[in-house]
């Protein structure tokens, strides 16, 4: 059991630490996963088009990638320690089933780290051909992606534990591969990766948009900024492709939740009763044991349709689950905010496409640039909220159905001293990283 100390409740402190660490780390994760792809893409364009401007762009963003990695590595180290030391109950229960992805993650990390270092030190090295250099970059992509898969597989297993039998309080008949390569893992991995690609590319596109806006280069004909326009268009196209694929994975996620994590879906949608033709509720908050208060509206049959491609699909409601097994119902509000952010994102991307490719007389580039300048932050908000929904939606379980979050917590109370230190230190780390990036970009511009 946890206790109250000078610094607060151990469980609360641990949740603060884990939540803040993940929220902070995810910002660097999405750049660590997307930047290698973008850098390789720009480098390849530079080689193919024999255009040194693309190569210079690849080099600039590889330097940014190196700085972000310093910060990402340290927050990743803290999270690795937390998963093992703050929540040892998870691994005590499932270590024999899901321990292997943790070990595979070390491979991925080693490959990513070594090839990142190699990639950085071999820029402009005459003994390394451009294509060999590009190959080093592709290994960074491989390492980063493998690392993301390993970690997402572990999280997926916590959401829907598979690959073992539980007999008389013992984990038996272990199938490591089915625990790792589960349906949950593939859906969660593909959905989160696409969201990272879209978010990071839009944030970077936003920086180019602000640059073009500041120089008032609204006209593509201005040769001086033609390259910046080209990069911006590349990034937006990349983001739009990721976004369109996200529709597919979002649909798969909805159907998956309805079948395998029904209580999470019921809480997210404030669906109390098991029935068909369930509406999608937008707005409102949970009231009492089975009510909704506050302004809201319903789209008839929409939740049933999303859950099973038919308005007649029966969707399980919260009343089918014990009150002690339900997640906090404020996840519904988090989902509403996430969907609002996504709708704004759709509108902005639509506006950009309209301006850039259809060129209506009543709308000019400045509006598109202003919109794109901010759109990435809505995507970032959506990613953060997506992970909050995943994690909070699993409560009260750490490993759903087997280990509660309270049971998974460390027996030591020393955590309370660190629960608030690390979040504060992340703020400082974030600030100094931001300053470093600003200075880096300024110095590159002068050069």
């Amino acid at each position, binding site marked *: 059991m946890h206790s109250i100390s000078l610094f607060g409740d151990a469980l609360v402190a641990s949740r603060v630490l884990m939540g803040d660490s993940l929220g902070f780390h995810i910002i660097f994760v999405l750049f660590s996963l997307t930047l290698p792809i973008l850098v390789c893409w720009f480098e390849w364009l530079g080689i193919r088009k024999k255009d040194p401007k693309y190569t210079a762009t690849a080099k600039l963003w590889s330097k940014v990638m190196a700085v972000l990695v310093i910060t990402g590595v340290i927050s990743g180290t803290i999270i690795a320690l937390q998963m093992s*030391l703050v929540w040892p109950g998870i691994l005590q229960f499932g270590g024999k089933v899901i321990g292997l992805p943790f070990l595979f993650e070390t491979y991925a990390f080693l490959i990513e780290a070594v090839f990142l270092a190699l990639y950085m030190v071999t820029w402009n090295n005459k003994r390394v051909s451009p294509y060999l250099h590009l190959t080093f970059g592709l290994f960074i992509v491989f390492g980063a992606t493998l690392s993301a898969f390993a970690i997402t597989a572990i999280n997926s297993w916590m959401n829907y534990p598979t690959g073992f039998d539980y007999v008389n309080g013992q984990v038996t008949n272990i199938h490591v591969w089915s625990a790792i390569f589960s349906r949950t893992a593939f859906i969660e991995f593909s959905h989160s990766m696409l969201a990272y690609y879209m978010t990071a590319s839009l944030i970077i596109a936003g920086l180019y948009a602000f640059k073009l806006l500041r120089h008032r280069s609204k006209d593509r004909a201005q040769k001086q900024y033609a390259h910046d326009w080209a990069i911006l268009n590349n990034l937006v196209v990349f983001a739009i492709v990721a976004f369109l694929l996200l529709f597919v994975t979002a649909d798969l996620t909805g159907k998956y939740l309805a079948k395998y994590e029904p209580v999470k879906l019921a809480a997210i949608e404030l669906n109390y009763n098991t029935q068909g033709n369930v509406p999608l509720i937008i707005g409102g908050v949970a009231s009492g044991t089975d009510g909704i208060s506050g302004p809201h509206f319903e789209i008839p049959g929409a939740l049933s349709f999303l859950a099973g491609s038919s308005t007649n699909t029966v969707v399980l409601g919260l009343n089918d689950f014990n009150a002690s097994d339900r997640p906090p119902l404020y996840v519904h509000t988090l989902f509403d905010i996430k969907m609002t952010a996504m709708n704004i994102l759709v509108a902005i991307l639509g506006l950009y496409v309209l301006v850039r490719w259809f060129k209506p007389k009543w709308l000019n580039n400045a509006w598109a640039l202003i919109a794109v300048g901010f759109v990435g932050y809505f995507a970032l908000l959506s990613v953060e909220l997506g992970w909050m929904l995943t994690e909070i939606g699993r409560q009260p379980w750490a490993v759903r159905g087997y280990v509660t979050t309270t049971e998974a917590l460390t027996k030591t109370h020393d955590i309370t001293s660190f629960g608030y230190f690390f979040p504060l230190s992340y703020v400082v*780390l974030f600030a100094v990283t931001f*300053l470093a990036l600003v200075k880096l970009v300024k110095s590159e511009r002068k050069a």
Partner: protein
Amino acid sequence: MILAYILFLVPLLLFVTAFLYETWLSFRRLRNPKAGRTGYVNATWEITHTLLILTVVVLLMMFTQSITDLASAIFLSTFIAAAALVVRAVCYIYIFYVRTGTKTDAIDWTFFLSHVVAALFLVITVLEALWFLFKNRPEANTQFLPYYIPGLIVVIALTALPILVVYKTK
């Protein structure tokens, strides 16, 4: 069982060696901060930390059946070391990427002290972990080894040459 110990002790030894070298560099550069980034490691940064993560992950994954007690035994020292590593990262980015001057100030000393604190508490962590393993003789998760070791050999083969190139370039 011995293999389980080797798998976490070897990367640990490599990490300690690399980290002590970095600690020495952080001390040496106090006398000559004008050397800037050339007086400290740059691209090797990530590789050193990777070894630490490798050590921690292997140690904990090998002994998941005793992880609750093992985690309690090494908790405080590990997190103090982690806090020092965060301070070190903040100082590193500030000194080498943000600051323009070359005069030694409190940040350089903090940078050096963060190395010392991290190294000290990581050594304490290792001793606590070894003492725990010696005292309790927990069962190791050897069922992972047939999957883990072949992969590790491939990864080491894949990364060995780049590591040599990186350190040589440094």
